[in-house]
């Protein structure tokens, strides 16, 4: 079946099988920042945005994304780079496999809650598993990133 998606602002057409998952369509077409992880909706490494909401591309059929706007980390390079710098400075980048999904979810959190508490940040991070670093460093990095972001926007 033929589907149409706006990916990172650009209209794209794909021929997909009805049982193909979005993670495969994206990766097969060069959006390789989107990682394959658990394939059961538990680990968060395949996180992308659909119409501005964070979703798991391993759970959504490509057919379900037909007509929708998809954002991968390639579409938010500048914002992602800023978040990444804070993750690195707190030593939580390590193997990096979960980083793209994590960053996409942090950008979603930022859109949803203006000044999140620690509890709210951890609640949003519940869907992103990391085997290397644990979550304290991630929490520190996100708090510092949001602090700087908020002070920049209030200037």
């Amino acid at each position, binding site marked *: *079946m033929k589907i149409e998606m706006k990916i990172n602002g650009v209209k794209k057409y794909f021929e997909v*099988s*009805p*049982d193909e998952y979005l993670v495969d369509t994206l990766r097969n077409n060069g959006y390789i920042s989107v990682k394959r992880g658990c*394939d*059961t*909706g*538990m680990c*968060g490494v395949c*996180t992308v945005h*659909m119409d501005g*909401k*964070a*979703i*798991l591309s*391993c*759970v*959504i*059929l490509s*057919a*379900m994304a*037909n007509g929708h706007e998809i954002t991968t980390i390639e579409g938010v390079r500048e914002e992602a780079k800023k978040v990444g710098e804070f993750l690195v400075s707190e030593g939580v980048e390590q193997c990096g496999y979960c980083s793209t999904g994590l960053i996409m*979810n942090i950008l*979603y959190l930022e859109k*949803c809650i203006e000044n999140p508490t620690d509890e709210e940040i951890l*609640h*949003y991070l*519940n*869907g*992103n598993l990391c085997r290397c670093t644990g979550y304290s460093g991630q929490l520190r990095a996100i708090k510092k990133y949001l602090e700087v972001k908020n002070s920049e926007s209030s200037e």
Partner: protein
Amino acid sequence: MISINEYATPESVEEAYNLLIKKRNNVVFGGGAFIRMGSKNISTAIDLSKANFNYIVEDENTINIGAMTTLGDIEHSPILKKYFNNVLAKSVREIVGIQLRNIVTVGGTVYSRYGFSDFITGLLALNTNVELYKQGNISLDKFLEEGSRERDILKSISIMKDNRKAAFSSMRNSKGDYAILNVAISNLNGKYRIAVGARPNRAVLANKSMEYLNNNGFSQKNAVEAAKIASEELTFGTNSRGSNIYRKQLCYVLVKNTLMEVQGYED
């Protein structure tokens, strides 16, 4: 592993229903998150996302939630926040991660009567009806008990805005895991509804416990007794998350604590 031959996006429930009954292995897809984990050969996957079932609205007496509303929408709904101490948002907030909750649908969860569901337990503590395309309105407790008599499509659920107070609690091995047991309790003018789910079978009402409380009124002593009755009247199973004995103990503790929480809202 699932296989799907065709994918359809009907624009009305009539069209969807005609597709559904055409073949035995045609399936209404919902969000598709749990289907993903199973194994199924689907002839036509029917996606209701173009049939206008994504809404949360209220009228004078009820809150209506469309089948394609996601659990993420439930969690963040300003309408639901106003009622029942936000129990429905609280019931979904521990389900895996926000990204999955932005996919999982109300219709997919409720029609499937998943035993592990936290959301169904929250709904069961309220005065909830399900609206099926062919069979019309059925109370949620009857639907959970009997299921659908024929192949049907869940259009929406409706909840009476009866101003009851409600609370939800659950026990998990780790954050984001399926609940080992979940409990939701509501109180309307001294009449309690006690729902227990993830037993691991589907959620049910603890009728004897409710009757005891409704006849004797709330006190700390009666809450303890009601929790004991609930843990003894319900049946519990064993799976990888917990044994039936552990679930029975949990039921006692969660019912007691949740009753205290609901009573706290009254004081």
